[in-house]
C-alpha cells in the first residue's frame, strides 16, 4: 500500500537483484502517482536522505514517460470522473427564493428539463417547438462565463457544463 515511509531495507531477494546504490534515488510511493503495488527495494546511502527535498521527491514521480498533453488529458478524465457534484443556482421569475441543482447528476438536457419541471411545477418549453401561448410558457436560460444570458439547449451538453454559471426560468414572451 502506498505510504510515505523511507524504508531502506530491500524487499527483493538480493541474489536476483543486487543492491542499487544511487545517492539521490529515493522512492516514495504516493498513492495518487505510483502504482500501489510498486515495490522498490533499493539500498540507500545515508547522505541521500539528507539531500532529499520535496521537490526532488516530486521529480522522481515523473514516470512513466508520457508527454504533458497526454498526462493532462488523462488527469482531466480522472478528475471529471471523481468530481461528484456541480451545484448551480436556479431562479424562477417571480419567485424570490431560488433552488440549487446538481448538474452532474444529469446526463443531458432532457433529464435537466424533467427535474426542473418537477422542482418548479411548471412547463418549460423549447420556444421554437412550443404550442403553448407565449404568455403562459416558460423557457430555461443560463448565465455563461462571460455574463451573458443565453437560451439553454443550443450547445452540446458537455460544452454547456463548462460555461454555465447559473440558471433562470423566464417567461417565454421575454425572449
Amino acid at each position, binding site marked *: 500500500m502506498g505510504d510515505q515511509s523511507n524504508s531502506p531495507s530491500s524487499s*527483493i531477494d538480493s541474489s*536476483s*537483484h*543486487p543492491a*542499487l*546504490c*544511487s*545517492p*539521490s*534515488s529515493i522512492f516514495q510511493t504516493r498513492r*495518487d*502517482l*505510483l*502504482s*500501489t*503495488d*510498486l515495490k*522498490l527495494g533499493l539500498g540507500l546511502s545515508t*547522505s*541521500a536522505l539528507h*539531500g532529499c*527535498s520535496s*521537490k*526532488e521527491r516530486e*521529480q*522522481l514521480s*515523473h*514516470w*512513466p*514517460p*508520457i*508527454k*504533458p*498533453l*497526454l*498526462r493532462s*488529458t*488523462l488527469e482531466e*478524465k*480522472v478528475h471529471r470522473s471523481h468530481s461528484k457534484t456541480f451545484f448551480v443556482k436556479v431562479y424562477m421569475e417571480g419567485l424570490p427564493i431560488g433552488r440549487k441543482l446538481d448538474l452532474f447528476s444529469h446526463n*443531458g*438536457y432532457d433529464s435537466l428539463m424533467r427535474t426542473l419541471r418537477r422542482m418548479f411545477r411548471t412547463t418549460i418549453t423549447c420556444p421554437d417547438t412550443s404550442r403553448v401561448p407565449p404568455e403562459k410558457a416558460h423557457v430555461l436560460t443560463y448565465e455563461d462565463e462571460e455574463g451573458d444570458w443565453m437560451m439553454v439547449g443550443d*450547445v*452540446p*451538453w*458537455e*460544452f454547456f457544463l463548462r460555461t454555465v454559471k447559473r440558471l433562470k426560468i423566464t417567461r417565454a414572451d421575454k425572449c
Partner: protein
Amino acid sequence: MVRGFGWAAAFPDEVWEHVFSFLAADADRNAVALVCRAWHRIERRSRRRVFVGNCYAVAPAAAVRRFPEVRAAAIKGKPHFADFNLVPTDWGGGAEAWVEAMAEGWPHLEELRLKRMVVSDDCLELIARSFKNFGVLSLVSCDGFSTAGLAAIAANCRNLRELDLHENEVEDNCLNWISHFPESFTSLVSLNIACLEGDVNTSVLECLISRCPNLKTLRLNHAMPLEKLVSLLQRAPQLVDVGTSKFSADHHPELFSKLESTFAGFKHLKSLSGIWEAGPTYLPAIYSVCESLTSLNLCYATIQSPELLKFVSRCKNLQRLWVMDLIEDNGLIAVAASCKLLQELRVFPSDPYGVAPPISLTEHGLVAISAGCLMLHSVLYFCRQMTNAALLTIANNRPNLTCFRLCIIEPHTPDYISQEPLDAGFSAIVESCKDLRRLSLSGLLTDRVFKSIGASANRLEMLSVAFAGDSDAGLHYILSGCKNLRKLEIRDCPFGDKALLDNASKLETMRSLWMSSCSVTLGACRQLALKMPRLNVEVIDERRGRPLESWPDDFPVEKLYIYRTVAGPRSDTPPCVWTV
C-alpha cells in the same frame, strides 16, 4: 594529370552546385565540404537546408555566416527528457539568439522549424517582420509564446503555407488571433492548432478555410464543439489530413447524419487525429473514411475496446496507428489480422498511475502485431508485463525494426513468468534487428544487457535507459561500443564516474548525454571538463544556492547534461545550471 586539386576548377562553380543539389543528406554535404577548399566554398554557398540538433552546439552567427543562402532551418533546444519534466523550466533553449542572427543573415528564409525551444512573442514578431517570403513555421514542444505572437505571424506572413503548432504550451491572450490573417490571404496549405487551449472563433476560421483552396491539413483543437467542427469541415472536402476537436456530444440524429455526410465527402483523407474523448455515439458516423486512412491517431480517444476495435479493423490500409491501451490484446490481434501494411505502432497507457482496474493489454498484443504486420519497423509500447520469450519472438519475427521503445510501467519489473531480468529479451532485439536506430529499455535489467547492446547495436543512434543496470560496467559497455551512438539519456541508474572518465573521448562523437539520479560526482565532472574542452559539462542542481566552486569533489550530481560544442560555454545559464 592535373596537379593537386586543380581538377575542381575544370568545371565552373555552377556545375558543382548543380551536382551537389542532388545530395540531400547533411552528412553527404558535410563530406563534400571536406574534399577541398573549392568544394567547401561552393558547397557552403549552395546549402539551402540546415539542421542544428543542439542549439548550443554552434554559435548562431557562425552558422549563418558559413551558409549564407539557407532557405530552411530546423533547430532543437532542450534535451529530450524535458518532455517528461526532468529539465528545469528555466534551463535554456531560448530562440532569440538564433532568430536575431537569422533575421540579420538569412532574409530569404522560408522555413523555420523549432523543437523544444523557448520562443517568445517578440521572437514571433521578429520572424513575422524579417522574412519576406516566409512560408513554413513549425513549433514543436515549445513554450514561452502566446496567441498574440501568433497574431503577428498571421498578420504579416503574406505567403504562409504552413503553421504547425504541435504540443506547445501557448498562453491564450489574444482570442481572435485567427482574424489577423488578412482577407487577401489565401496561401494556407497546412494549419495545426491542436495544442491551443482556448476557443477559436469558428466563423472567422470558416472564412479562412473557405478562401484557402490549397488547404490539405487542418488539425483543430479540443475546445470546438462537434457541431461547429462539422460545419467547418464541410467547407474543405479536399482535406488530406484532419485533426478533429472533441468527438462527443449528446446524441442528435441530425448531427450524426451531418457528420456522416461531411466525412463521406472526404475523397482524399489519409490521416485522422484528435477525436478527443470519443464516445461510441459518433464514431460510426465516420466509418466511410476508414478504408482510405494511412495514419490514425487515437491516443486521446478514451473509448473502450469493442468500439475501438470496430473502427480500427476497418482501416485496412493503415501504416501508422497511435492508440490507447484500451484496445487491449484482442484489439491488437484484430489489427494484426486486418492492417497488413502497418509500419508504426504506438500504444499509450490510459491509466499510467494504476488507479483503475487493470487493462488486458499484455505482451501478447505486441507479439501478435510483430507476427502479423510484416512491414512493422517502429514500436512504442506501454504495458505492465513482459517476458524474455515474448521479446525473443518479436525479435525473430521483425528483424526489420528500426525503433523499439518498450515502457514497462513499473520500474524493475522482471519476466513475470521466470522472474528473470529481461536481459535475454532485449539482447535478442539488438542482435536480430541490425538496423535498430532507436531503443528504449525498461523492466529489470542487469549489466549483461548493456554488454549485448554495446557489442551488437551498431546502427543505434539513440538509447534511453531508466532504472537499469548494476554498476559502472553497464555504462562502460555502451560508451565503448555502439559506434553510431548520438544521443544517450539515462535516469535512475547506478552509473558513475569511472565509466564516464574512461570513455571521455566518446562523448565528443555524440550529440549529447543526459544523466539524472545516477552516481556521478562533481569531481568527475571537473576532470571531464578539463580533459575535454570541446564539451560543455552542465551540472544541474535545483536544491542548493551555493555556487559550484564551493562544493567538494565527492558531491553527488543530481542532473548532468554533456554535449559537444564549438561555441564554448553558453552565456545564458540560469541559477540552477553550472557549466563546469
